[in-house]
């Protein structure tokens, strides 16, 4: 499985891509997508919704189970991936690409420092 070096990671298996100083893109890792199995539904917040670090921002349903999605940071949702409404399988197929979930405008960019690097995340996976 692939864990790109340019992303940040959380213990809840979300990834985060830094787009600019104040905006980030969030999705779930290949590990999470594989554990969930075929994703059949993704419920995302509306644009403008507030999210908080470690707070639930949505739900993901696979043929196995329904799980919650946790935001890595505080902020406001500025974009949601509309494609997932009709093609949730993008999460399985392109976890770091078209399977992205929300774009967040950060309220506190320093929170990024607390997230894991790709190497840290893989080390964390080895302990599971």
């Amino acid at each position, binding site marked *: 499985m692939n864990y790109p070096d340019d992303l940040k990671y959380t213990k809840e298996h979300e990834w985060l891509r830094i787009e600019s100083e104040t905006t980030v893109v969030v999705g779930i890792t290949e590990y999470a997508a594989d*554990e969930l*199995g*075929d*994703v*059949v*539904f993704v419920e995302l917040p509306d644009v403008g919704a507030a999210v908080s670090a470690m707070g639930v921002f949505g739900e993901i*349903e696979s*043929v*196995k*189970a329904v799980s919650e999605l946790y935001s890595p940071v505080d902020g406001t949702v500025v974009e949601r991936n509309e494609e997932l409404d009709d093609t*949730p*399988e993008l999460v399985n197929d392109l976890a770091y690409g078209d399977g992205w979930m929300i774009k967040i405008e950060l309220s506190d960019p320093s929170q990024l420092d607390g997230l894991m690097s790709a190497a840290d995340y893989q080390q964390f996976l080895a302990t599971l």
Partner: protein
Amino acid sequence: MTTPERWLEKHNRKLLMDRSAPGRIGASHARLDVPESELPDAALLRDNLDMPEVSESEIVRYFSQLSHYNFSIDHNFYPLGSCTMKYNPKINDEMAALPGLSEIHPFQPEETVQGALKLIWHIQEILAEVVGMAGASVSPKAGAESEFAGMLMARAYHLSRGDDKRKKVLIPDSAHGTNPASAVVAGFHVVSLPTNEQGNTDLAALEAAIGDDLAGFMLTQPSTLGIFDTNLSEVIQIVRDAGGILYGDGANLNALLGKVKLGELGFDVVHSNLHKTFTQPHGGGGPGAGAVLVSERLLPYLPEPHVTRAEDEDGERFSLTTPPQSIGRLGPFQGNFGALVRAYAYIRTLGDVGVSQISEDAVINANYILSQLRGTFDLPQDRHCKHEVVFSAKNLKDNFGVSGKDVCKRLIDSGIHPPTMYFPLPDVVEESLLIEPTETESKETLDQFIEVMKLIAKEAEEDPDLLLNAPHNTPNTRLDEALAARRPVLRWSRD
């Protein structure tokens, strides 16, 4: 090549609409010999309804064929963990069909349905006695509605004391999924607690999560890991000291009947899924019946209608009443009455000794399966289980690429219903198979199941494709569950 039986099989699986022939009817009427009259409100009639046009024999065969595709406990072993699919004695159906119980109407005057009300009152009394609580309501239609009622009572209790900051409900990750949903719908905020390596409540995590905002704690006992929480007395003490309400999910009561009274341990609310523990042909979501049982301090909040008994010189009388601070009605009328009659018949035919034996037999059956399949499948908690046992197919997945789901699909080929899979959830047990044999199965049936499971594990090693492509002997073979969930076709259409 199409064989005759394959060709016919395909024909037999046509939907009713596809069997329709224009002008064909199911019943013919005698010649009209009275004057025709206008329909009272012709505007209500629609002429654009696409209705199947079939004969009576065609429609009877259609539904009879469909019924053959169905599976029930009357067909074979059904070890669907946490669903308690026990055999339903036919006498229960006979009792529920008695005209005095089946042909009454909820709007009848109370004095004309005293027998039915007495039955409800008596089952309230029996359940309260069995679980060790002060009172019961049987108006919930199933377990989750009982949970909802129980949490509303917990909220009403806190608010009645002017304690409006208690908003937090703690629920272990091994709980039934309905617990957090019920608590949230009842207005609480849910915090999930981890289970420790022994499968017990993690006491340190519990201590860290309590505070003066604690409204309650919902515990499934035995848990969905099929084990008795050996930290239970500490858990009860901690929650009570913090002023929380202790909720006991009695979905797994089949392990405790006549052995443990949750009320005496300190639980404030307990629910029972009557359709599981006390028989009722259920599956595919119903029909269910729930009971919610409460301690003394929650009695005033029971839902209405509550059946009460009074006695004077004319004898006993049963009435539908409203408890003083009732949380209100959960729905129309008096719950799922037919299911209550079946539960009552089950309890009364067994008697008190028989009811205790339910749990003894259920627990020993589950432990027998545990002992015989140990070594064939992984056993995440290798300790005595209660009425159900959790195995993991992780060994098969790691070694042969065969998942718990593939094992379940292969089991279908043997005519046995698969166990519950992927529950407990993957973060608690990977590739879980939750097996609940219930008390109604003989040793021979259990041995058959054990042998089939061992053969399947052997196949996983020798010919994994047999499992990966299973089932092979069913009208439909492996379904594309992802496609079915992503693009469900829920309506028939001409094209």
